[in-house]
C-alpha cells in the first residue's frame, strides 16, 4: 500500500477513536447518555474504522472502501434524521453544542468528509492494484485502541439499554 494511503487509513482510525472517546467523555463526565440515534451514529463510525482496519490488514481494496462507504451512508442518514428532528425554529437542540454546532451536525460533517476521502482514494487507485497489507506498531496500536472503544461501547450500551433497542 502506498505510504500516504496507509497513513490516511491509520489517521482516520485515530481520528474516529478520538471522536468516540470524546463522546464517552460527554457521556461519563457530563452525564449525557447517548440517545438511540447517537448510538447508531457511533456504529457508523466504528464501521468506517472496521473498513480502514481491513485495508491495513489485507491491503487496500475497493470492497473495503465499499464497507467504509456503506457505514458512512448509514451514519450520515441517521445524523441527517437527527438534524431534521431538531431543525425547526424554536425546537430545542439535543445535547451540548461544540463550537456552535450540535454533536449530530458534526457527526454528519464527518460522514460527508469520509465519503469524499473514499471517493478520492478510489479515484486515484490504479485498476487491479489490491496492495499488500501493512503491519507495524501504529497499525497494531490503532487496532487495539478502536477494539477497546468498541468493547466499551458494547458494555455501556448494554448497561444503558439491556436487551432492548433503547428509548422504549
Amino acid at each position, binding site marked *: 500500500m502506498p505510504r500516504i494511503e496507509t497513513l490516511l487509513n491509520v489517521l482516520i482510525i485515530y481520528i474516529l477513536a478520538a471522536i468516540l472517546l470524546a463522546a464517552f467523555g460527554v457521556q461519563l463526565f457530563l452525564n449525557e447518555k447517548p440517545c438511540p440515534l447517537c*448510538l447508531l451514529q457511533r*456504529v457508523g463510525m466504528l464501521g468506517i474504522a472496521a473498513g480502514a482496519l481491513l485495508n491495513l490488514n489485507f491491503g487496500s481494496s475497493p470492497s473495503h472502501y465499499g464497507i467504509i462507504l456503506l457505514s458512512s451512508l448509514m451514519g450520515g442518514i441517521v445524523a441527517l434524521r437527527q438534524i431534521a428532528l431538531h431543525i425547526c425554529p424554536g425546537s430545542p437542540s439535543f445535547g451540548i453544542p461544540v463550537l456552535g454546532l450540535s454533536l449530530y451536525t458534526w457527526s454528519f460533517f464527518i460522514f460527508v468528509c469520509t465519503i469524499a476521502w473514499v471517493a478520492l482514494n478510489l479515484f486515484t487507485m490504479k485498476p487491479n492494484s489490491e496492495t499488500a497489507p501493512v503491519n507495524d506498531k501504529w497499525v497494531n496500536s490503532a487496532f487495539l485502541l478502536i477494539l477497546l472503544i468498541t468493547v466499551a461501547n458494547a458494555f455501556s*450500551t448494554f448497561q444503558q439499554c439491556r436487551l432492548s433497542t*433503547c428509548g422504549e
Partner: protein
Amino acid sequence: MMAALFVVLTLSMMAAFYHYRNTAIALVLTSLLLATLIFWGHATDELKINW
C-alpha cells in the same frame, strides 16, 4: 439489541486482525444491516421507539 451491534463490530474487528477477511466483511455488513433495520423501525414507527 443495540449492544449486539457493538458486539458484532467487535467480532468483525477481531476477525480482521486475525486474517479472516470474509468473516470480518460479513460481520460488518451484518452490523450495518441490523443498524439499518433498527433505524427503519424508528422511521416507520414499527418499533415504537421514543427517540
